[in-house]
């Protein structure tokens, strides 16, 4: 029986859609193209099949996500993951938070930062650079954004240059997008094996 996961975790849950995903066998040509289904690649997640209901958005989504999270230069990958995680914590997207906390831990070869954040949230004791990055992303994720000139100055004081700051803005903003799909269209679940 599948149980909904409500607590933040690095152990990535399964994502269960609240709407019916597109049936691959009934997909239109445009959907197949956006899904990048080829004879050698027929494995598509329920999440992507759900997004295939809006094929025009799906088509631009993957290249945009990859560019913001992985393109060279600017903020290092771990910093971008903190941006993604801060947004996911504000929006309580347990699934996205798990994926990006796990990636951060993997990149840094340490669970220290994500342990602290999951335990204490915004009150976690972080080093000055992580503190400035997390606080800015957290405040930018509110509606309306609560980030102000002091938060921007804190990033500069922590040593971030303009390229790094824009990358942080992009990763936190991108998860304002991702969270509103993942957290709204489905549930993070864990299958419990009955004894």
């Amino acid at each position, binding site marked *: 029986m599948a149980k909904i996961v409500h607590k933040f975790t690095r152990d990535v849950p399964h994502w269960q859609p609240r709407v019916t995903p597109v049936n691959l066998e009934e997909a239109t040509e445009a959907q197949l193209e956006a899904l990048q289904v080829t004879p050698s690649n027929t494995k598509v997640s329920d999440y992507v099949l*759900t997004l295939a209901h809006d094929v*025009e958005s799906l088509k631009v989504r993957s290249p945009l996500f990859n560019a913001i999270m992985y393109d060279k230069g600017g903020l290092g990958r771990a910093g971008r993951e903190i941006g993604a995680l801060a947004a996911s914590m504000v929006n309580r997207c347990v699934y996205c938070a798990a994926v990006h906390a796990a990636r951060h831990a993997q990149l840094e070869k340490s669970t220290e930062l994500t342990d602290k954040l999951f335990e204490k949230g915004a009150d976690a004791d972080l080093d000055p650079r992580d503190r400035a990055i997390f606080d800015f992303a957290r405040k930018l994720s509110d509606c309306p954004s609560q980030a102000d000139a002091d938060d921007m100055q804190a990033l500069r004081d922590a040593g971030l240059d303009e390229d790094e700051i*824009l990358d942080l803005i992009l990763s936190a*903003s991108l998860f304002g997008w991702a969270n509103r799909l993942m957290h709204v269209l489905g549930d993070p679940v864990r299958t419990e094996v009955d004894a």
Partner: protein
Amino acid sequence: MSDIWTTTAVAAGGATEGGPASGAVGLRAKVMEMTRTAEDAVLAPADPGAWPHDLRAALAVRIARLNAAGDVAVRYAARMQGDEFAALADPAETGAALGLSHVVTFMDKVAARPRDIAAGDISALQAAGVADADIVRLCELNAFLAYQLRLIAGLKLMTGAA
């Protein structure tokens, strides 16, 4: 590459060629270009499903206002061709007169309080007769706007336009 300086995100964020933050924006030109493509995909899609372009524009204006981004609201409002859905641009309007209160309630909650969304919010749309594909379309519109409005808010802090 076409002119990234005229895209909604870059222009509303106050970045101009050679001005503050322009080096960083230039480094991410591809991202800004794709952001424009994504904006067109949600505000003027070839297949709008149940949500005409004017309804999407009105909801975008509304959500920009919920985000205290009046200047961006003006940019989205410029996309409206007629006034059928214009009333929805006002965050105080419930949508009841247009038979769209279920859509407005959902969009406001996803925009402003996404953390409170639960399965019941989706089943309420389904009970009101909204097809699954159209639920996904609403979410994509809302999700993109969340991204673009935050990108603009952040850029404004970088450029000093805030």
